[in-house]
Structures are given as C-alpha cells and as structure tokens.
C-alpha cells in the first residue's frame, strides 16, 4: 500500500515535478540510433518526460533533440525539411540548428539579427551503443556519460529494442524487480523460448516454485536475490540488480545472452520499455539476433512500421485460451515481454496503490519505492545528487549461481555482480 501523495510523487514525471526533476538528473535512452540512420534523414517525433520533442541528424552527422514546435506559429517541425545543417519549418522557412538555435528567418533582413533572439529548448543527444541518449536536466550539472555494459560492448555483442507500454513507468519497472512472478507468469517460456531454454538453472526454477527472497541495498539501488533449492546442501540463486531510477537486469540462463530493461516515462500514462540482450565475451549468433528480431526472449513483435507491440490492448493481446489450458503459456499471452505488459497495462494507466495488498515477498518493490522516495525528496529539499548517476553504480551484472547453503550471495558474488569488461558472466 502506498499513500496517494507518495504514489503521485513517484509516478508524475513532467517538467517541474520532483520525480521529473530526478529523471532529469540522468542520461536516459531517447531513441534507437537506427531511427536516425543517416545525415539529413527524416526527423523523428519523440515524447519524453511529458515533453514533445523532435530529433534529427543534420548534414554533418550531428544529432539534435529540441522542442517539436516552431517558435513562429507553433507548427510541428516533423513536417520540416532537414537540409544544409538544420531543420527548416516548411510554413515560413524558419530554420534551426542541432542546438535549437534559430539560424534563418527568411522574412527578416539578415542584418537584423532577429534569428539570434530565437532558440528552441534543446537537449544533447549522444550515441553510445545502439542508443541515442539524452540528458534533459541542467547543462551545468551534466552527469558523466553512461557506462552500462550492454551499451559499451562491441556492436556485434549487443542488441536493443524498444516498445511502447501503455501505462505509467513505475508499474512497468516494478515488474522488473518482482522476482516472485516468474515461477507463474513466465513458466512456459523457460521450456520453449529459444533465448532461455536448455539452461540447467531452469530445472531448479521448475522444481522449486517457492523461492526465498533476500533484498540487499547497494550504492546505486538494490540487489534482489531469489533462492531456490538445488542439490543437497546447495541453493540456486538468481540475483537481479536494480539501479536508480529505472534500470533492471534479468538473471541469465546458461550461456544465453544476458538481458535487461530501462523503463523511461513518455508521459505519466505511457512509457518506453527498452529491452537489451548482450554477451560480454562473444558476438551474438545470427540465430540469436533473429530470435530477438522475431520477438523472443525479452523482445516482442510489432505492429508494422511502429514501436507498438503487435499484441496490444486493442486486440486483447491475442489471448490464446487453448495455449493457456495446454500450459504452453501460463496466462494465454505469447512472449515474456507481452505477458508482463498485458498485466501491467490492465492495472490502468497509473495503478491506484492505495488499494493494493502487498505481502512479505513484495519487499523488493517496497524497498525500491522507499529508496526512490528518499532520493526524490533529498534532491527536492536539499539538492542531493541521487544514486545511479555515478558511473560506478552502472557497472552491474545479474547473476545466476549455485552456492553452498551457508554462503550468502551478497558477499560471495560481489565480483560476479560487477560488470567486468571482457570477462564471462556468472550463469547456470
């Protein structure tokens, strides 16, 4: 249960809100780099943290992210002409460079200097890995560039997708740290999904449906350990890191690529679910990449030409009651990603947490909310920099491991839980 005022505090991210200010402390994923594939390509509408923006790549390959609307008459610059070092409004020809600075107002004399007085709100856009990242906060307080391992390994070792999720970011993100749902909702996928199946660890998952949880605070967020019985005198641990505000990783399975998510608010009732797979020591195989493109693992299929999932609320997520009865899927919904999204969207655009009935196994979620609330209020009231900005906080990995029963995971797996470039991940 969460009081309404706290729920509002954590779920509202528009400009000027405390949680919005917190998200504006970080570099966040804005677009896939493939959305702006070449110089002078078509601009792309982007809505982030309740701000409608336009992204473009100019004639010199510079990325721009700025207010979507022309300062003259409010026309959407999506209709603009991306040419000769700037984006030109097609209505009266006003032109802007990648910093949002107006560089031409054809109706005014060049000598008047009028255009120098016009500048659109703009944010930096930088390419790291497959992703274009932006920082929408104070430029005098720009954080170090992102160091997430999935975005910094060689290109052939990583794959990223994104999908539109039609609910608030927090309830989507909470799914990423809610380890107790995996034994139910995703139980079918462990047997059939090509990016999960075959791992020895899956046997422990199937054999022990009642994991014991251990939640430990970390500098950047949390570790949520789920413990299941393994061989005599041993436990199988699946350890999920959460880094503030909205990065999670799924514990790996065998030698399959590791995967995880970013949950980024579009507005208070929509978010981007970013999903990545990477392998720290080898290139992804052609088959693995094809599986990801086909929507397996943590990815999904799309309505052609969009980032909207093919299974969505308008088609009841293509519910398959026969598959549910057969046990192919637990909920009747195909695919890990849409199994989560369908249920999270069904809660409503912003779930009313005053009505929920949490139990002890929800303590990962309880602690995450607690950490977010403390960080948000410390930033708002005292200007304290929140956890997760420090590059060291971003150097995390998930872990799947079998340990002797008397060995606690946090101590024993300290090195395994840290990103170690060029070294294999710890997985069973």
């Amino acid at each position: 249960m969460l009081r309404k005022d706290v729920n509002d505090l954590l779920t509202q991210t528009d400009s000027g809100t405390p949680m919005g200010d917190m998200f504006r402390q970080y570099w966040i994923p804005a677009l896939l780099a493939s959305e702006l594939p070449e110089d002078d390509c078509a601009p792309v509408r982007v809505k982030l943290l309740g701000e409608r923006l336009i992204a473009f790549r100019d004639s010199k390959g510079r990325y721009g992210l700025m207010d979507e609307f022309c300062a003259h008459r409010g026309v959407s610059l999506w209709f603009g002409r991306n040419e000769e070092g700037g984006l030109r409004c097609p209505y009266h020809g006003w032109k802007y460079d990648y910093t949002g600075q107006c560089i031409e107002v054809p109706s005014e004399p060049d000598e008047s200097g009028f255009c120098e007085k016009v500048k659109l709100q703009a944010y930096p856009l930088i390419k790291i890995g497959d992703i274009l990242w932006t920082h929408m906060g104070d430029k005098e307080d720009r954080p170090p560039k992102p160091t997430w391992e999935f975005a910094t390994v060689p290109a052939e070792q990583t794959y990223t997708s994104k999908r539109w999720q039609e609910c608030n970011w927090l309830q989507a993100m909470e799914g990423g740290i809610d380890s107790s749902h995996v034994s139910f909702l995703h139980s079918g996928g462990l047997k059939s999904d090509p990016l999960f199946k075959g791992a020895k660890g899956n046997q422990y998952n199937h054999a022990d449906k009642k994991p014991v949880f251990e939640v430990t605070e970390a500098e950047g967020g949390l570790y949520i350990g789920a413990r299941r019985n393994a061989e005599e005198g041993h436990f199988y641990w699946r350890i999920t890191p959460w880094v503030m505000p909205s990065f999670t990783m799924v514990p790996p399975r065998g030698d399959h690529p590791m995967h995880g998510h970013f949950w980024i608010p579009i507005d208070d009732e929509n978010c981007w679910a970013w999903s990545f797979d990477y392998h720290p020591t080898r290139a992804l195989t052609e088959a693995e990449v094809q599986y990801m493109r086909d929507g397996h693992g943590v990815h999904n299929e799309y309505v052609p030409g969009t980032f909207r999932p093919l299974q969505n609320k308008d088609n009841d997520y293509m519910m398959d009651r026969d598959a549910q009865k057969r046990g192919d899927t637990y909920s009747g919904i195909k695919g890990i990603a849409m199994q989560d999204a369908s249920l999270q969207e069904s809660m409503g655009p912003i779930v009313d947490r005053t009505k929920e009935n949490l139990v002890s196994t929800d303590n990962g979620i309880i602690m995450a909310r607690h950490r977010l609330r403390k960080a948000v209020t410390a930033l708002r009231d005292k200007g304290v920099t929140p956890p997760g900005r420090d590059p060291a906080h971003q150097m995390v990995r998930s872990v799947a491991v079998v340990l002797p029963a008397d060995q606690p995971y946090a101590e024993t797996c300290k090195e395994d839980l840290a990103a170690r470039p060029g070294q294999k991940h710890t997985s069973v």
Partner: protein
Amino acid sequence: MTDQTRPTLLASCASASTAAEARFRVNYPNSGRRRSRIFALDGPAAEAMFAITEAPWQGAHFLAVGSGGDVDPEATGADDLPLSHPDGTGAKLSEEIEGADVVVLISSTGENAGAAEVIAREAYHRHIMCGGLALAGTALANGRGSGAPASSPDSDPTSHVVNTLRPFASILVVARDADFIPAMLNALRA
C-alpha cells in the same frame, strides 16, 4: 453462441484500461485487518522499533526480546521467552502469535539467535509467514563496522545479523537505515 463471439462493449475488453474507465472500478475495502507481530531481537532494534509504535497502526503488535533472550531454542518453550510490550509489560509468545498473519523479526546486532529460532518455530508451526529485517546501518553504527557496503565481506556485523535471520526468514531484507521499518510496515498494512 459460438467461440467467434467477441466482447463489444469498451469495458469488456483490454481497451478498458483507461483513466476514464478506472472510475468504474468497484470501490470497497478489499482486505480485512491484518494481524502483524513485530519482534525486535536486540536493544538497538527495539529502540528503532519503539520509536514508531505511536503511529496509527492497523493492529500491529510490537514486542521486544528482553535480556536473557540468548536462549537455547531446544530447551525453551514459547512462553519462556522474555518478551515485552512498548510499555514494558510482559507478553506471552503463544498468545501474541496465535492468529497472526505475518511475523517480522528485526535484528541490528545479531544477538539472540536462539530467540529468533523460537519465534520462527512457533510461526512455522502455525503456517505464518516469517520475514526478517536486518538493520545493517545500525549494526555498523554500533561500532564494529568499517562503513563498508551492506553485506560486504568487510561488514562483519551485517553478515552476523544476516546469518542470524537467514535460517528463519522466508523474506530477508538488509536495510541501511531504520527508516525502512515504518516504510515496510505501512506498505504491508501492519
């Protein structure tokens, strides 16, 4: 009617998950009052716990294991455990735990593992969920820690606390600060 029939009203399909439709959700109290029993296993844990007992809880009982709590669990019956209420009056474990929905053990020093086992055993026999809260920050502040991260090899007091609770807790939380106690109990409707 065939299986080709599909819902036609907005509220009959997944598209109903809008803010406008949310106002038609049935509004009623969907759960009864919970009986939560919170046990502080040592002095600093009791101090942190008793600091928040005045809040308007919904039926939670707060109990502290007193001196003499370092018992042999094999030789200690439920009602032999020294327990006290916030006002200092004594309490019987069997009466407190009967009918409880959840038991939470709070430890900050790792002392009184025997008492933890007695309480957890009584909870187990009654099929009551038993959770553990290790106050790592309090353990470090008590002088034996180095300021290392929670549950790191260098934070011996934290490991000691965690190891005390681990055998008995179905969910174990290692928190740096005591302010997680009210946050957790509020979330659990204690």
